[in-house]
């Protein structure tokens, strides 16, 4: 059971504001999908380690300076070089 409220809250966590219409449509779909995912419950995998690839310390990036040649922040709304963002309340 995934309630509309839960979905609304999850939306807020992801900064997605869902309309009532969307909430109505998604609720049954999402519930169905999550019920499907619940099949994982029937597995008891206590002995197993989750998958993870490894890398040696010696293979890590060396601490060297290299400036990016290009404009990483091609943003229109600026002031004195700062990027303009919405206001904090």
């Amino acid at each position: 059971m995934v309630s509309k409220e839960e979905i609304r809250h999850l939306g807020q966590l992801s900064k997605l504001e869902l309309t009532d219409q969307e909430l109505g449509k998604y609720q049954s779909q999402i519930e169905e999908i999550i019920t499907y995912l619940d099949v994982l419950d029937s597995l008891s995998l206590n002995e197993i380690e989750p998958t993870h690839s490894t890398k040696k310390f010696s293979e890590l990036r060396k601490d060297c300076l290299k400036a990016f040649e290009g404009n990483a922040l091609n943003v229109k709304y600026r002031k004195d070089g700062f990027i303009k963002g919405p206001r904090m309340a």
Partner: protein
Amino acid sequence: MANLVSLTSEQITLGIKNGDFSAEEYICQILYRIEKIDFKINAFITVDKKGALEKARLIDRKIRNGEQNIGPLAGVAVGIKDNICTNGLKTTCASKMLKDYVSPYDATSVKRLQESDAIVVGKLNLDEFAMGSTTEFSNNGPTHNPWNVDCVAGGSSGGSAASVAALECAISLGSDTGGSIRCPASFCSVVGLKPTYGSVSRYGLISYANSLEQIGPIGKTVSDVIMVMNAIAGKDDKDHTTLEWVPKYTLNPTKKNIRVGLVKELVEGADPAISKCIYYAMDMFSRLDFKCEETSMNSIRYSLPSYYTIAMAEASSNLARYDNIRYGFDLNPDGYEWNTYFSKVRSNFGQEVKRRIIIGSYVLSAGYYGKYYLKAQKLRSLLKKELKSLFKKYDILIAPTMPLLPFKIGDKIDDPLKMYLIDIDTVIANLSGIPAISIPAGFNNNLPIGLQIMANELQEQTLLDAALLFERATNIQRSPEL
């Protein structure tokens, strides 16, 4: 020379180097073809006529001047899925969120293709942020299947497969998270490879699910795929998850003694017309002196839920960065309160993307992490173990690529779960990281059927050998009349 558009990469580079035709002549035919028929297919989001012609002329100049450093893919027209970054050309991910975005850097795969003198002709349509199996979730409209324009081309790399089938480019790059290269390759009767995880750099691939996805090639033939892999695969310092190796694939049309395992569960779960085709393929292999037998996999019923749990979880986090502050589309933030601004811009995601972000947040939330995400990651270990023992007995595993034939556009779009179920055959390779290829295996009612071949990690050569032999023995049509 007429009809250069149906040439393979090998034929194109040879022809250009031999002086049979110029790169410019070839590219003009390609561009003309796109202009003429893409309105029917809708494979392209962006076409870079100017850039393509410039590069073609550059190559022609190099050849005229007798320069030695002509790349191995000289002149070959390549399309790039629009979730792979190209410096100077828009990369939109078929989403409103990035509709104006131009990346300031090239993806490593794109850079390596350019260094091989391939010619990027444009960016190809996909499901928004690669989330989908039919390319219907695109902000640019669906891509139509060249074999039957009322049907889906598959997804999420629909544009990549359809453009190759429709002879709008010789090769294309797609990305495969849960089948997104193989599915459209199967639906469009072309060859599509998802390489071993870590064999191709993901630098510049706009992330959907980073622990599952790989960039891979789509072409008309196995030799096309090999040529692209030799150009793009191999370790990249810009991607910590790439493996320490160098690609050196060859065409081996005389390989023998390959042991083949047919995955029973996957064949049985498919449309009867498809199962029939796959059994026929197994016969083909037997006639090639391969040892074939049926085999079984226990982890299959958990693979889809495991895949979607992980993919959605990673997606929900990967897509958080789209807040329109550093890139996106034009909306002045002046006056907006930040929560409002973020929510407003993010309402531009399509419905499928929103659904996945929500479910992804759900399975990662405190309290549910152990039940879903952790379990799913553990299942991957189990699956890998099972495949490891299978690959002691078999060199390759075969199965259908898709459990069903290409269906009409709009058929499954209102039932997300139904849509997810069609990935049943393909997600195993992503969860375990093994390579998998889809090659054309036949038709039913003029709708393509694909055979999927899987091999052990970094054993692409074996997989390609089998695919090549199958291709030569069956000679299935690669492009429809359009």
